[in-house]
């Protein structure tokens, strides 16, 4: 294992500390329990947005703390959801009296720990509502299982719900916007290589030189199946197909197309994937009106990418375009 780290046990704390030092204009880092909140503190009268989960997906979530997006982020250990206590403290720090929205990725651990934190917060009279992001079409959506995972769509939920909160929507309205995004966003990913969790010290799965994992998550877990290495166009087709099938887009509908890097894939390759995805959507009469390309939710140094499509309407488009000022996403401010 080759990493720019010191003691594997301290990676998260040292990294989050550095993040705080690098962005004093945007965030404050609370070291014990560990969470990141806006430099200015809670905004009175505004719905507070809190997200969190295992570390290793940077810039998610701390990179999205700031005006127009999150009020606080809670980084757990690598790929491991945080315990209730820091979530609870972050929730209090984000509360401006108008209630707090928890944006939770659909993993059992995340759901359970945010649940407990919400109960603790409610006990201190902070109104908490939760939305659970589950955009990964690689996983079957069923009542009898843990359901679909939350992956890249989370970034879009945070941005758009964040804009709704920033313009003054009340808690119900922010929840409704978040649910609208969740209901209209789907993703699927591929891994060319595995990643290595620092305290594990070895790659999270084995892949031969001519194999790739299709339907990968963001925690180094294996995907749905291995396939032979293929050209980017073919891989893009395989990711996009189930996404489009699930979304059932009608001719002429507008979408946001998001090509996300898993951390170890060059930006040039992400734009190359975007190029082909765009051709496919154009040929199907789907109008791509907004785009996002880059490493926005990662799996450490994993090589790979995911494709996310969000069905847009004028409300979502307007909220997407709204100003945002965070370490990892900045526009119009």
């Amino acid at each position, binding site marked *: 294992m080759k990493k720019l780290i010191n003691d594997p046990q301290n990676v998260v704390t040292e990294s989050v500390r550095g993040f705080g030092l690098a962005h004093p204009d945007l965030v404050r880092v609370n070291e014990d329990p560990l969470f990141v909140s806006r430099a200015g503190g809670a905004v009175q009268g505004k719905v507070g947005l809190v997200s969190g989960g*295992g570390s290793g997906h940077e810039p998610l979530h701390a990179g999205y703390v700031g005006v127009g997006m999150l009020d606080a982020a809670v980084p*757990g*250990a*690598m*790929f*491991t*959801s*945080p*315990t209730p*206590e820091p979530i609870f403290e972050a929730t209090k720090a984000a509360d401006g009296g108008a209630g707090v929205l928890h944006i939770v990725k659909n*993993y*059992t*651990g995340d759901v*359970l*720990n945010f*649940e*407990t934190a919400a109960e603790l917060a409610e006990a201190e009279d902070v109104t908490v509502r939760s939305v659970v992001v589950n955009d990964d079409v*690689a*996983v*079957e959506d069923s009542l*009898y*299982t*843990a359901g679909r*995972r939350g992956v890249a769509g989370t970034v879009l939920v945070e941005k758009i719900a964040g804009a709704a909160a920033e313009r003054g929507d009340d808690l119900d309205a922010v929840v409704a916007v978040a649910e609208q995004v969740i209901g209209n966003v789907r993703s699927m990913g591929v891994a060319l290589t595995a990643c290595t*969790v620092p*305290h*594990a010290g070895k790659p*999270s*799965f084995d892949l031969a030189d001519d194999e790739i994992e299709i339907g990968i*998550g963001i*925690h*180094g*877990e*294996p*995907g*749905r*199946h291995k396939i032979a290495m293929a050209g980017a166009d073919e891989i893009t087709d395989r990711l996009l197909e189930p996404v489009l099938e699930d979304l059932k887009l009608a001719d002429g509908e507008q979408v946001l197309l998001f090509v996300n890097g898993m951390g170890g894939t060059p930006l040039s390759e992400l734009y190359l994937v975007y190029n082909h995805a765009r051709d496919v959507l154009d040929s199907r009469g789907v109008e791509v009106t907004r785009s996002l390309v880059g490493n926005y939710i990662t799996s450490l140094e994993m090589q790979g990418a995911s494709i996310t499509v969000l069905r847009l309407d004028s409300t979502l488009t307007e909220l997407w375009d709204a100003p945002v000022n965070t370490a990892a996403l900045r526009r119009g401010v």
Partner: protein
Amino acid sequence: MSNEAVSVRNGTTRLESVVRLIAQTCVDNEKYFSDLDAVAGDGDFGYSLARGFENVLSEWDAYDRSDLGTFLQKVATSMSGRIGGTSGPIWGTAFLRAALVLKGKQTLASTDAVEMLRAAIAGIKKRGGADVGDKTLLDALVPLCESVAVDVERDLDAKVIVANAARVARDAAEDTARLEARRGRASYTGERSIGSPDPGAIAVAVLAERIAGEW
């Protein structure tokens, strides 16, 4: 059926030594448990348990021991406060529910042990929404509990009871390899989870074997 109460000292000692053994075994097996989780999960299971039980060991001497329930509740709190992921809430609930059974008690009867296991199982099911057959630790813990219940009913010697429990847990845990995961992170891999056992179930077997071995 033996309701013969163990003395406070003995009871505390037995409960304490079992809890301590659980904690130490989880710390010792960090790598092994994580490796199991890496097969179809995300490889943090051992890390999480180790960090949680490390904390139990480091706070050990300071626990309030005014009654058995209070002691076990403190253990649950200091453990689950450090375990993130699924295992924090699941193991935390299990210990907390077991602690409630012992609330106010100074002695521990064999029947208490059965009740503790049942309460833990009910708590885990409620918290995580899983049941037997979903390929979780329940698939080892439920058969283990049944074995203990039957043996306590038969009034067998404690040493025999734990030995039987360990054997049953091991067999059941290995058997989870045949199952497709329907809960937890391993479920995302679908059929690929078949062929390797559930880390949580294996952990239950390892702990039961260690307890039986040290009885």
